[in-house]
């Protein structure tokens, strides 16, 4: 299920990274109407003075001027281009190199300079909700990858269970699934543990300990 849409930005804080305050006057005014405060990080040797580690995805929004040369060293995931906080690009020069820089930062919406007040709500709505959607998709992709990696253990565990219990593959799978739920583990994690314990010396007990607590299934 897609994440819920964020529609009220009250209490947000915008960090506007630009050297051209005149071009973003309407941005600050409109953000004020939307309950979002604005700060202008100082540019020192071309770098914005922002404590990136202190940024919070629930509160902070970065507006980055694409005409500046790499002003923010954001820890953006290269594969998914998912930044730690929503990034909205401020577009001046419409050249591929400038736009590519903003895309690599993970910008999920854009505003042309000089900013028109009427475009700000749409940019915030799009930028923040695309950020949330990308985060959700990345989490789902991570989960799918984890399950893909555990596929081999599941196949081996089914075969082992069929041999051990004399059952067919459906029954073996159902049993493993039931036992994984009982031990509050994912199927893949349970199968890995099942195989590890079976691989232990034969004179040791092979029953599976039930876990009291643990991460639930996603």
């Amino acid at each position, binding site marked *: 299920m897609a994440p*819920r849409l964020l529609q*009220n930005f009250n209490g947000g804080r915008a960090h506007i990274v630009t050297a051209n305050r005149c071009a973003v006057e309407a941005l600050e005014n409109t953000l004020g*109407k*939307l309950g979002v405060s604005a700060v202008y990080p100082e540019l020192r040797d071309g770098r914005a003075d922002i404590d990136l580690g202190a940024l919070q995805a629930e509160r902070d929004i970065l507006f980055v001027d694409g005409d500046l040369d790499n002003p923010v060293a954001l820890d953006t995931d290269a594969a998914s281009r998912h930044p730690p906080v929503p990034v909205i690009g401020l577009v001046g020069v419409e050249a591929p190199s400038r736009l590519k820089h903003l895309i690599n930062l993970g910008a999920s919406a854009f505003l042309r300079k000089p900013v028109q007040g009427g475009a700000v709500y749409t940019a915030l709505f799009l930028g923040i909700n695309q950020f949330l959607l990308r985060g959700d998709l990345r989490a789902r992709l991570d989960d799918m990858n984890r399950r893909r990696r555990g596929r081999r253990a599941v196949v081996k565990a089914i075969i082992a269970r069929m041999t051990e219990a004399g059952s067919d593959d459906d029954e073996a799978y159902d049993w493993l699934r039931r036992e994984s739920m009982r031990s509050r583990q994912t199927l893949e994690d349970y199968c890995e543990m099942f195989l590890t314990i079976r691989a232990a010396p034969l004179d040791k007990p092979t029953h599976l300990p039930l876990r009291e607590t643990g991460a639930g299934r996603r």
Partner: protein
Amino acid sequence: MFSTTGPYSVVARSMLNGALLAVAEAAAPHVSAPNVSVEPVIVDPAGDLGAYAGLARDLLQSGVRHVVGCYTSSSRKEVIPFFEKHDALLWYPSHYEGFESSNNVIYTGASPNQHVLPLVEHMLERVGASAFCVGSNYIWAWENTRIFREAMMAQDGRVLAERYVPVGDTEIDQVVEAILDARPDFVFNTLIGTSAYAFFRAFRAACNGRGIDQPKQIPVVSCSLSEPELEEIGEGAVDGHLSSSVYFSSLDTPANRAFTELYRKTFPQGPSTSADAEASYVAMKLLILSLAEAGTDDVEVVKQAVTRQHLLAPQGEVRIDPQTLHAYLTPRIGLSNKQSRFDLLFEAPGPVRPDPYLVQSAPRYAVASRNPALRVVK
């Protein structure tokens, strides 16, 4: 710029009257703005959305810098780009659904926190928790119904269904049948003009036919219903409807008595005063006062001047919020009577700050559908 002909002409004619009344007052010898001479240019887009853009462009190209006008949100959105391009000012005198704040518009009508939210509170407290929504198929109804739905659901209310009909359409029987099948506690109406009048008549008749006391058992509530429209609905279906508004002509204040009396004398053929007529009167008054203070029609100077005005309007004190350029107004709820007027049921203690984006009241996240995310599986 008012559509004094076409599907919503009744309200628009009362709006034009309101604006012209303020012009007439400014021309009187005792007024507070003696250095301002206003010569109105009147245009009628006739409710045709396509006509608004051309008329706005022509007006602004002819040198007009201030336009009082528009009733529907779709027409306002149609003309705003021209006002932004020519750096002119639109004085928009009608309640609307919010989520807009152009720097080239002064909004003197009610924002959603001044009309739909007080109505939701009232209905949930006094009437019931299930609503059926019916509206005209355009931005006002879509967006106002969304705000209504989210406010209802946030407080455990329910919206049973939503139905939309084209602006001007009077084939309303299917909607009436659907409401009677659903049997909500009340109907939330965002129909405008002739569609609304046809609906009120058809719904009352259908209820009478089934022995249902419509005003008591399935009341209809609106954020747009005004006195001239009650007169259009006509005898037999006019009473018992709730309206959330910042102005009713029945308000018993000296300023309103003077306003309604002057209006009646000036426009004996009607239509009656309405919230939108008052908002148009307020818009023109504020424009004239701001022009007088500014000493010029320059848009930036007039915009600065309007935020310094405190107007004792027929509804009470009105002033413009410098941040949003929307008006501080006083929310009220009225119940229509057989004389096509409203009896006051609720009144806020004073003017309420406009919140066009509902940043102070809307939930942070859009309200999810009530369709359960979990279901029983074998």
